[in-house]
């Protein structure tokens, strides 16, 4: 029995017990969610800083599975300033995408739940806490104020509808009084904006008639249809070739300055981050391990994970005999250790690392790291 447990196997009885306990928690949360006519005062909140478009504050998003509770996002705090691009990097499974899905309330419910924390969204004259907002209310903001560019342009489009119809759906939903002709005009305008030359033709096409790069442009056009203030780009270029990637990045940069929105850019490609982002957030196993401006992170990476990540990527023009590879693997998300999550893979451990998970240490006003190596070097007065 003990042997099996260490390898992550569960007996049916144990699994049933877990499922029962989960159901209790989920039912409570779902009951709260499903109330009708939630007063606005319940999710009205104030921003800590008016210059931020989005503030994630101690966000916890858990998935209640029959094998145990997966803490996908476990206390994530960072801000997206107005008109800036924030890059989020990390390995697959570190909670990057779940963080963005929490902001859109697109989590797989009822298993996926925001159990703690706030996501404050700045609407200009007021601020809403997305974590507490009812689903129907968010429908008005989603696509309109916050929108998302998905990773797979192949699966993000519906194969049985024409491109024009799919783009018009977004416009129709958010602009009730728009006429059919105006909608078509706007759709063609959008297609031209993302650099599709044959916009009239593409309007009538089906997704399978387009190449990967073109499809990604359509997905971007769809996300930008209502001039959103916050754009979440979830690995928008991972599935594309370098030359097409360069085109899409150029396009996003141009559009950002045109409509002055904030972008949350999720990727695992450090090169893309360096090029696109103003601020960088490095995530590991559901937590933010380091954040700062792009210059700070790339010139002076502080957390051992960030340093390892930079060293393991081959760079054109730099010849090394052997690439650095971070030893070990990410801890099991169901059974996280109670010390620093990176300790078992870290080659720079100090004595304190056996203690509790390290708190956030400020190296400068913007550069923050969660690592005991810096506990003595805190910037004075912060």
């Amino acid at each position, binding site marked *: 029995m003990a042997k099996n447990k260490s390898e992550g196997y569960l007996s049916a009885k144990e699994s049933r017990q877990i499922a029962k306990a989960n159901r209790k928690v989920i039912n409570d949360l779902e009951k709260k969610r499903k109330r009708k006519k939630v007063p606005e005062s319940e999710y009205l909140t104030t921003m800590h800083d008016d210059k931020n478009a989005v503030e994630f504050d101690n966000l916890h998003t858990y998935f209640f599975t029959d094998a145990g509770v997966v803490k996908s996002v476990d206390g994530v705090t960072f801000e997206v300033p107005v008109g800036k691009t924030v890059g989020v990097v990390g*390995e*697959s499974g570190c909670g990057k995408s779940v963080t963005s899905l929490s902001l859109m309330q697109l989590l797989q419910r009822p298993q996926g739940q925001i159990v703690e924390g706030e996501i404050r969204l700045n609407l200009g004259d007021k601020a809403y806490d997305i974590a507490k907002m009812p689903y129907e209310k968010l429908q008005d903001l989603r696509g309109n104020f916050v929108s998302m560019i998905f990773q797979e342009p192949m699966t993000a489009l519906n194969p049985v509808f024409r491109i024009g119809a799919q783009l018009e759906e977004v416009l129709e939903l958010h602009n009730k009084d728009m006429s059919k002709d105006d909608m078509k005009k706007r759709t063609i305008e959008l297609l031209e904006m993302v650099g599709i030359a044959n916009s009239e033709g593409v309007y009538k096409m089906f997704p399978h008639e387009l*190449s*990967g*790069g*073109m499809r990604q442009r359509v997905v971007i056009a769809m996300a930008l249809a209502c001039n959103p203030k916050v754009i979440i780009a979830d690995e928008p270029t991972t599935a594309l*070739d*370098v*030359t*097409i*990637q*360069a*085109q899409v*990045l*150029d396009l996003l940069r141009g559009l950002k300055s045109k409509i002055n929105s904030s972008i949350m850019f999720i990727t*695992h*490609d*450090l*090169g*893309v*981050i*360096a*090029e696109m982002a103003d601020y960088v957030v490095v995530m590991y196993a559901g937590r933010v391990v380091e954040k700062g401006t*792009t*210059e700070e992170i*790339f010139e002076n990476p502080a957390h051992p994970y960030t340093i*390892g*990540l*930079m060293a*393991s*990527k*081959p*760079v*054109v*023009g730099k*010849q*090394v005999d*052997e*690439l*650095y*590879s*971070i030893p070990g*693997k990410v801890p099991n998300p169901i059974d996280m250790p109670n010390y620093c999550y990176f300790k078992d893979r870290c080659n720079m451990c100090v004595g304190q690392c056996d203690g509790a998970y390290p708190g956030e240490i400020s190296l400068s006003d913007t550069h923050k790291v969660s690592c005991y190596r810096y506990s003595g070097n805190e910037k004075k007065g912060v």
Partner: protein
Amino acid sequence: MVTYDPQYILMVDELKKYFPIKGGMMSKAVGQVKAVDGVTFNLKRGTTMGLVGESGCGKTTTGRTILRLSGEKTGGQVLFNGKEVYDLSKKEMRALRTKMQIIFQDPFSSLSPRLPVGEIIGEAVREHDLVSKAEFNDYIDTVMDECGLQPFHKARYPHEFSGGQRQRICIARALALNPEFIVCDEPVSALDVSIQAQIINLLKSLQRQRNLTYLFISHDLSVVEHISDVVGVMYLGNLVEYGRTEDIFRNPLHPYTKALFSAIPIPDPKAKMNRIVLEGTIPSPANPPSGCKFHTRCANCTQRCKEEAPVQREVEDGHYVVCHLYDK
């Protein structure tokens, strides 16, 4: 026709592979997709050749055609250790299969979900009678150990492994046959950065130990620069530039190579971008442009490029390019 030179393990001359487009009532061929349209290169023993290019340019088909995995070739020659691969009988081909192996791109779909790992790795070894029955188990253990897998993994099934470990299983499967030449078809594209580094290091150390020859297909130029000795750049079924890695990266000649290299994102926020953005997308290989196939997207296009196809010429020692710009 090329004559065999023993220093090269693989000699590919004007290799062509066309796929028919079937249409109409009787499903007869109405056109051809020229996936590989005249590729020529020689590969020295114990070295790595990187093959880069956009998706759909024929990189993978080149790899598969060399291994005789996609039916008959349309034209050209493939000499492996001096023997024409396509002239071998079924029996001879079967024996040769152990010498040339392939590692596929997607470690999730290239492993049978119904076989335990030991069987996946050992199946071909038993089939080819490479080791005696008594030694079989030990042999599989050694191969797995070389690839960084534990012996107790043998009884497990592929779904129990992470992406990086699955790619190790694929590598072990190829290595178990003791091959001389391995086609690596985007072996790290589906993996995370930190896992990528582990797999690349593994491939490099195995090459040193066993004097392996790789054909490394990838669209990630930084990985290709790291692992390859020579690099070939493909565009629409043609090898447009070919040479030593240092030469190609230091001094790219073909306009397509230049554009490709300028599109690599550099992980340094202060790096200056002098990007050559290619307009449009890769033309259809069923109906390639006349003359130089790249002329529709080329910034230096002249009238001559539209009419006359350029031929391969050696610009500096061992650095070949197919472009009218370098005509003397």
